[in-house]
């Protein structure tokens, strides 16, 4: 159907125009005659509406449709809801066989859920596809509407077509006495007092207020686009990092993928005391504080993969990391994630005791990880010949280590020095022996003695506690880099500005024309018709026409 878009006032309108751009006369004849006019975008044609659309126009029109946008919103809503039926795979830190897990935990429905990919809803191609389509729709819808609307609002006619006025939501028609021009001027003065901008043209008037609120939706859409792009930006590897490091107290560990090292100086966990708790929680360990006193080091030399040198570190930042208070340094953030109570020796400073002379030598340093191969205690040289971080005996009764963690370390030293055999003497030493291990230490040293490897004259002793460094807690920290975050916040802020502009202010317009003493008033706002009726009624009252605001409601009169 080819629509005749030339209005009776002589204005040539583009295809798709609903209300004449110039005088406001309805151009589409099939609108129900008694209903208020459809005023969105002021009846202007959307930018993309054409007589003969090509393929690209069809794609464009698809995304330009609000109907499609609403469908996209609803589909996203349904998709999101489905994703909450069972926990997502991403909520598990280690899930090797998701299919098995869902089957065992949630039965048949769980199996189906997982198989259909709903256990990864929010990373799935279709969900991201929906978000991309929403983004596209935001761009195209806004572009398509904002320009025609801008044009329509910036060249408004003061004198509108009679039908345009009588079919607004707020309408009044009545006789007025006296000079039409004067009456209009008086009415204009009243509206100006209500901070309307008023234009008059003889016996016609246009008053307008808060036009800027019309741009609210477009501004909030821009905010959303920035937000979505920023979220997408997080998938750029250099912009995003998400790692976990477990650091024992007094340990310094490299942050994976960076040249920074994080040290846990001290970890504190505090629980509420019983008197701080209400009755029903007494006796329950309710955490009050988790805190990692952390130091961040930057590597200044031998970083990278250089296996020959230890990296040179320089402390750059320190902070008490708590759950709501991460350590931040140049975009790198460390969050308290978890902790584990596990006692681990880090370093001891034992004395070498000579049982024969009663003399003691040392202390010497013994680090658990990477111990020095040789140490000196008085005149004696101690050469490390074996290390068992987690001492145990294998099937044949030979010493072995059960793991590489320093849960129960044992060290075998070859001692050489004055009065000793040239090949030295062998001794095993448990820095942190349990009662049972004390016996084992004795047994092994005795068996060395029987084999002639030692004379039994030496012993080790730590003595005071300050000679022992140990870690009581392992603190797990979440290391994050999120360079897109500022844009996420900027997008959110712009969105808020747009929404508030659009919803807390309303664009209000009042048109008046007086033809042969008959006043016709039409007023429009897309939100808060109550407010505009009140505005119009109070201005009318001040001009000698007292009306109840409700009388102005056109919907009521036509129903």
């Amino acid at each position, binding site marked *: 159907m080819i629509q005749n878009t030339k209005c009776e006032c002589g204005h040539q309108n583009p295809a798709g125009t609903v209300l004449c751009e110039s005088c406001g006369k309805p151009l589409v004849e099939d609108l129900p005659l008694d209903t208020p006019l*459809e005023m*969105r975008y002021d009846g202007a044609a959307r930018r993309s509406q054409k007589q003969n659309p090509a393929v690209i126009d069809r794609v464009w029109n698809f995304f330009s449709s*609000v*109907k499609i*946008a*609403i469908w996209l*919103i609803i589909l*996203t*809503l349904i998709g*999101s*809801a489905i*994703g*909450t*039926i*069972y*926990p997502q795979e*991403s*909520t*598990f830190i*280690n*899930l*090797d066989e998701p299919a098995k*897990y869902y089957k065992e*935990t*949630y*039965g048949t*429905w769980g199996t189906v859920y997982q198989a259909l990919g709903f256990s990864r*809803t*929010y990373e799935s191609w279709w969900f991201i596809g929906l978000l991309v389509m929403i983004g596209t729709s935001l761009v195209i819808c806004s572009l398509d509407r904002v320009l025609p609307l801008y044009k329509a609002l910036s060249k408004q006619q003061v004198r509108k077509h009679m039908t345009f006025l009588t079919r607004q939501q707020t309408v009044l028609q009545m006789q007025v006495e006296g000079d039409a021009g004067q009456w209009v001027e008086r009415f204009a003065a009243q509206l100006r007092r209500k901070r309307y901008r008023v234009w008059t043209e003889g016996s016609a008037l246009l008053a307008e207020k808060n036009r800027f609120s019309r741009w609210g*939706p477009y501004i909030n859409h821009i905010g959303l686009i920035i937000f979505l792009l920023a*979220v997408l930006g997080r998938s750029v590897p250099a912009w995003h990092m*998400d790692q976990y490091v477990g650091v024992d107290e007094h340990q310094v560990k490299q942050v994976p993928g960076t040249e920074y090292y994080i040290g846990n100086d001290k970890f504190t966990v505090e629980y*509420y005391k019983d008197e701080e*708790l*209400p*009755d*029903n*929680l007494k006796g329950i360990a309710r*955490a*009050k504080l988790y805190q990692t006193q952390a130091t961040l080091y930057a590597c200044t030399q031998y970083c990278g993969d250089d296996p020959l040198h230890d990296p040179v570190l320089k402390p750059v930042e320190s902070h008490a990391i708590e*759950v*709501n*208070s991460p350590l931040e340094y140049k975009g790198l*953030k460390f*969050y308290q994630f978890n902790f584990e109570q596990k006692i681990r020796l880090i370093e001891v400073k034992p004395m070498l005791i000579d049982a024969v002379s009663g003399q003691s030598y040392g202390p010497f340093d013994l680090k658990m990880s990477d111990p020095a191969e040789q140490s000196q205690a008085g005149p004696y040289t101690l050469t490390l010949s074996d290390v068992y971080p987690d001492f145990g005996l294998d099937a044949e009764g030979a010493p072995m280590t059960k793991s590489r963690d320093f849960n129960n370390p044992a060290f075998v030293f070859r001692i050489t020095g004055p009065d000793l055999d040239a090949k030295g003497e062998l001794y095993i030493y448990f820095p942190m022996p349990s009662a049972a291990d004390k016996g084992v230490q004795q047994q092994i040293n005795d068996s060395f003695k029987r084999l002639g490897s030692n004379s039994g004259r030496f012993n080790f002793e730590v003595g005071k506690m300050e000679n022992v460094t140990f870690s009581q807690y392992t603190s797990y920290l*979440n290391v*994050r880099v999120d360079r897109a*975050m500022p844009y*996420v916040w900027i997008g959110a802020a712009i969105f*808020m500005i747009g*929404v*508030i502009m659009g*919803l*807390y202010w309303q664009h209000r317009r009042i048109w008046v024309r007086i033809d042969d003493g008959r006043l016709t008033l039409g007023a429009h706002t897309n*939100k808060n018709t*109550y407010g505009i009726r009140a505005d119009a009624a109070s201005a009318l009252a001040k001009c000698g026409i007292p009306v109840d605001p*409700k009388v102005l*409601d056109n*919907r*009521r009169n036509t129903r």
Partner: protein
Amino acid sequence: MNQWLDISSAAFQAAFYLYCASFISYAIAVAGKRWSNREPALHNRRWGRIGFVLAVVGWACHLTFFFTRWKGGGHIPTSNMYEFMTFLAMAIVFAFIVVHSIYRNNLLGAFALPLVVIIVAYAAVFPSEVQPLIPALNSYWLKIHVTTAATGEAFFAVAFAAALVQLLRVIDFSRTDKKGRREQKWVEFVLFFMVVIIGFLVSVFAFRGGGYEASFRQEEVHIDQQGAEQSVTQTVEYGLPPIAAPYNSEQISMQPYLGITKPLFEAPSWMNGVNAGRKLNTVIWSVLSGAILYGLLRLIARRPLAAVIHPHLTDIDPEDLDEISYRAIAIGFPVFTLGALIFAMIWAQIAWSRFWGWDPKEVWALITWLFYSAYLHLRLSRGWQGTRSAWLAVIGFIVVLFTLIGVNLVIAGLHSYAGV
């Protein structure tokens, strides 16, 4: 614990009774217009004013409760379900006062106040002791997030009340065609749903008042992250007589009721979350007592409840209600976005190192937001007004309720997600 908390709980009780009184005044204002010897408009205005004043005084007491509890407890009282629900009720009264001062519509009070009363009573179901904060909750962003989100949701609640009145107003009982009947049925269903919630409250408080107790020992098997099976035995306490026992449990003690000494059945195995059996039992009781209550009401009225209310609403314009409902959503939407999404993201970013984690509670906040954006688009760009938009406002608030309560109850009931 201290005298601040004593003042606080006294103020809370005062607020509750004042809200009840306010509701009764509003009900008289609406229902008593045609009582003999009075001028309807005058009657309406007088009782409406009394109702509004009572609501405002009640709100003042509620505020007193809030701030004294804050002072006495040492932290802002929004950190558990009891505190959150009371705050939500307070926010709804605030939203009601705001909307009422714009539109001065008495009917709104007649429907917003019962909602407030129900939510306050619902809050009282939860333990009311002040609990010290766990580290994750110890952040001022959390306070800002919760209070703003609740305020936004309160406006949605007012929109719901207005939309429900509108539906009751425009519903046409003379229609017998399919569409007309469907509309009658659904409006009645919404009312039934509210009666079920009242049934829930009645049964909880009745049995609590009677000191009812039953307990079970339940063995729960779950697979940990290393894939090892772990079985945990725990005691489940019931405050309502057990119709459904927890899955895989044995009875420790149970007071008999109606001569029944054993639960009628066990909860199905797929309900394997925290306290799933107890929650199922509570739902059964709510529906049962709600149905009985509804049956009684129907028996007295001999008509659908909607038909009882409908005639009292005739002298109000549905367009005004439409406008009120829409305006409340328009006011609430930015507040909700800011509180439930943006502030939530800021807090999550600080506390959990990610601003968004697709956690069920977060997702449902997003769903609520998407729903209301669809509402605004349908209304602004596709001209959905009147009944259709009223239905959306009703459904929207149900989504809000699901986000606030349902996610913790149902989703947490199906799996072990315990919520924050």
